[in-house]
């Protein structure tokens, strides 16, 4: 035995000094990449506080930060707060609708049995295979039949539909992970279906709900193409569409600082949400049900 192990190559463990250097190198690389990744964000935030003169002043411009761009932004078109409110309403409406519809469907698919259930589940996943960019033209016609074009409600409905396959998938999995004994016990105790959902299941499926809500909110907040097509009145524009008008000078001569302020205003809520709810966002990714 000992002869054999003496012949086999010893596993090479780096010496303590080498290990330290490796770790330092690892940190060094990680920090350099972090700087590269965060520079556009930091630069944009700083630039959004610079008027045209400060922007041209290089490093000295950093000493001249002011709120001019944000003031101007609030004077463009209906004002940034108005568009931000539109975006917020669309995002919240999408979130609420998606969560409620997907939770009900998830429960039905995981915890009940009805004829045709398997078929319904597959059918609900089908939209996942068709990129929504492909059906915007007929969707526009359908919305106009229901008098839902040029309305935030119409946009919310479209977004909910796009979110549903992912949301139903996540919620079904959440319900499947809850042991059946729980529901059996609660039913024997005489709980109604509503009590069952809210008091028994809700605490256990919160991670799934948070994941779905986060994706729905971020999608509703930042989607551009559908918002561009379905909403045509300036006062109903969402933030990404309104910024496009700012860029093409529809609200007067383009001032890049003001555009930057708008982009930062659109970005900050996403970053804040992500920092607090990161766990749930990454959970959705791990499920593999993402689109870019």
């Amino acid at each position, binding site marked *: 035995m000992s002869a054999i192990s003496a012949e086999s190559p010893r596993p090479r463990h780096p010496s303590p000094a080498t290990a330290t250097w490796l770790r330092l190198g690892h940190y060094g690389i990680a920090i350099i990449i972090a700087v590269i990744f965060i520079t556009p964000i930091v630069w944009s935030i700083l630039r959004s506080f610079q008027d045209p003169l400060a922007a041209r002043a290089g490093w000295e411009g950093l000493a001249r930060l002011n709120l001019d761009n944000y003031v101007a932004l609030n004077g463009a078109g209906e004002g940034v707060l108005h568009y931000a409110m539109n975006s917020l309403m669309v995002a919240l409406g999408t979130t609420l609708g998606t969560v409620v519809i997907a939770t009900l469907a998830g429960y039905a698919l995981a915890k*009940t049995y009805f004829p045709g259930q398997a078929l319904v589940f597959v059918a609900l996943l089908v939209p996942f295979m068709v990129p929504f960019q492909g059906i915007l033209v007929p969707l526009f016609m359908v919305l106009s039949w229901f008098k839902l074009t040029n309305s935030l409600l119409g946009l919310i409905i479209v977004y909910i539909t796009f979110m549903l396959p992912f949301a139903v998938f996540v919620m079904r*999995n959440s319900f499947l992970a809850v042991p059946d004994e729980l529901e059996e016990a609660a039913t024997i105790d005489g709980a109604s279906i509503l009590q069952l959902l809210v008091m028994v299941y809700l605490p256990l499926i919160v991670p799934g709900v948070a994941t779905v809500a986060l994706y729905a909110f971020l999608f509703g907040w930042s989607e551009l193409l559908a918002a561009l097509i379905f909403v045509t009145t300036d006062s109903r524009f969402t933030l990404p569409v309104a910024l496009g008008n700012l860029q093409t000078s529809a609200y007067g001569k383009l001032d890049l600082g003001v555009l930057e302020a708008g982009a930062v205003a659109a970005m900050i809520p996403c970053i804040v949400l992500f920092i607090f709810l990161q766990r749930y966002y990454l959970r959705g990714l791990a499920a593999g049900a993402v689109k870019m």
Partner: protein
Amino acid sequence: MTNLTLGERLASPRVSQGAGVRATPLQQRRALVGAAFVSPAVIFLVLFFVLPMGLLVWMSFHNWPLLGRVSFVDFRNYEAAFSDAAFGQALWFTTIFTLISTPVQVLIGYGLAIVVRTPLRATGLFRTIYFMPVVIGTAAASYMFVVMLQPGTGLLDSILTFLGLTDGRTPVVTNWPLAVTVVVLVTAWKNVGTAMIIFMAGMQAIPEDLYEAAKLDGAGWFGREWFVTLPLVKQSMALVLIITITGSFLAFDQFWIITRGGPSGTTVTAVLWIYTVGFIRYRLGYSAALAILLVAMLVVASIFQLRILRRRSEAA
């Protein structure tokens, strides 16, 4: 069948004893609850997906202006599509963009995953920073880069001037290679976090023993990465490839905002062209035909993604 759902178990007498046995009142009630709860989702699916899908096909065989008379044109929209130089150019450009953008994102995403997969004291922070661009929305990111790329005052020129590579006015969006390079990099910056997380999850699932065994066999770091890690993240690789390819093929925001399709229409993507035909020129029928061609190309990729996804959820 040990994985019956609660509902299936309650309904099992009917399943096992054939259709002749009537369901108990409890089973009937539960079936009713299930059907009722799933119906809102089904209604949305039918009204805002199935109906538009059918209409998409129907419209593609018609000359369909926004206002005015709709007329049946047989396959002429499709014939027009195949001789439409602008659509051909858009598909060609979209393909080139996808071919450049995909390997860039896969390589960077893979590299980042290697950096963040080992738990160091600050790994969580690094992961958050690398991932942050993913959540800010392509539109917001694109507007930011419009300002950053501005000749003279933008960040790009500041960096290039600092490096001594320019006199301070780099006209990015009017120069095709430069414009494409920049959009590829912006897209990568914006999206690689997703690839990173998927790769990282795949790498962390590899048992440590395999690395120990490879070490005993005398494999160095590169050997272990090449012979152990790479083959074992195949599924993550497939997922990342599909997401990146479909995402690149559907690119719209970056080009609509940063290059606006220029210089002279050479960076118009497929979706941007379909949007232009449909909602700027209002040739809705023709736009529908183009959209069907695009969807047909992408459905195949998405079917693969769905298969991976179901396999994952079964494994979990």
